[in-house]
């Protein structure tokens, strides 16, 4: 079963972390990445640039209209994800709990099963 473990970050919360806390996030992700690579559960993981760099695209009367900035008017934004293939939802939740963000108040880690997949990744 394939699951997307998505990380919903809050730039203000991240900015307020101490250097040690930021470093702990880095090592936590490295440890999780190594574990799921070794177990054969990782399909891919990606991290996104800061939400301030996003552009929202709308098509009106057949013409694209582009606005800078994120679509959601929220404090939290999609920061990145792990796409994994694992035994069941319980295991996906176990892996999500290894995402260091899950231990930080104000950051969100979400698990959702994949329903359709296609692409060169064969995943």
């Amino acid at each position, binding site marked *: 079963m394939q699951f997307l473990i998505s990380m919903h970050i809050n730039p203000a919360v991240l900015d307020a972390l101490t250097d040690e806390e930021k470093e702990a996030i880095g090592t936590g992700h490295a440890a999780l990445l190594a574990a799921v*690579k*070794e177990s*054969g559960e990782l*399909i891919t993981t990606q991290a996104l640039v800061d939400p301030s760099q996003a552009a929202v695209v709308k098509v009106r009367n057949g013409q694209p209209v582009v606005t800078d900035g994120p679509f959601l008017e929220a404090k939290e934004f999609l920061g990145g994800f792990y796409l994994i*293939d694992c035994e069941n939802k319980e295991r996906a939740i176990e892996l999500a709990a290894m995402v260091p963000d899950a231990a930080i108040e104000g950051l969100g880690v979400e698990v959702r099963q994949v*329903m359709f997949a296609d692409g060169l990744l064969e995943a």
Partner: protein
Amino acid sequence: MTTPVGDLLRTLTPQVLGALLRRYGRFDGCEDAVQEAVLAAAAKWPTEGVPDNPRGWLVTVASRRLIDQVRSDHARREREAAIAVQPPAEEVPDTDDTLVLLFLCCHPTLTPASQTALTLRAVGGLTTAEIARAFLVPEATMAARISRAKQRIRAAGSSFALPAGAELADRLRVVLHVLYLIFNEGYTASSGRDLDRADLAYEAIRLARLVHAQLPDDDEVTGLLALMLLTHARRAARTTEAGDLVPLAEQDRSRWDRDLIEEGTELVKAALAGPALGPYQVQAAIAATHADAPTAAQTDWRQVAALYLILSRIAPNPMVTLNRAVAVAEVDGPAAGLAILSTLEGDDRMAGHHRLLSVRAHLLERNGDLAGAYDHYRRAARATASLAEQRYLESRASRLRR
């Protein structure tokens, strides 16, 4: 996946692996060497022709690979010396190692995902790339999974021998479950790569046939093979050309594979005549009852309901209860089916489960509660992880709206 050379290689893979294991031990190293030899043959044989003794060719090439592997590993000098004195591989014993290999690949310390992957590679003779495609993951992911599975088997210190006594029965149950999972993975194909995944059902049947040939008197092995054949027989009728699901009651039965049904039905009869009754035999008997009905309306639902009752006694689980509710509704009416469903209310495993929601939707519809049925079809459509099933449930819901 099915070419003459491919078929030959898949048949020979477990034999060659067995021959190497007998000679050298070291499951992980031998398995890698055999895979490399098979890949070499797959590249060579179609253009240069199949050698006179293909099995001997593979054993020789795989042995060389294994020795090269050991030589390049400086930390294992002593084993190199031990292997170097072995005579070159020529004679291959005629015993069938398939069963021993299956027990090894379905080692209880492995997760089902690892058991299925390793079984398909070491016994099924599929390449890592083929297995990865079938399970819709990148090859690197599948390679890591297989390599970790082999490490675990090495750590568990498994020997290349059949388990004895009571352990044999327990381990056989795991093997059958793994074959069942491989079959289901192929059978429930729902995405754009249906063809690759359908081959998994074919592979599972092939492996079940191998086990059946080794253990013809085991009624559950016979039952599982029968169940697979009878289910696979409906394959062509099960989806529309657009990939939409066709429920059993609406399938064009002239498209069912009669040869598979006949073979499956004979196997069920043989299994049920045996001394031990198990869940695969009962499920196969249910499939045979459906196969026996010329039209959906002529289904012997009384027999299906009775078989589900037996199944719920010998292998109780909420899915069996769910299916029994469907059968009982056919015999005694939808209200009787709904009453059985209500016994699942408090079951955490089934709370919000799409199958429970969709069965309830069907029974509510037949009971005349169209608003309730509409609501349940919609909830079931939201809960499923299968696109084909979602399309089907949405169409049932919109039919009620009209």
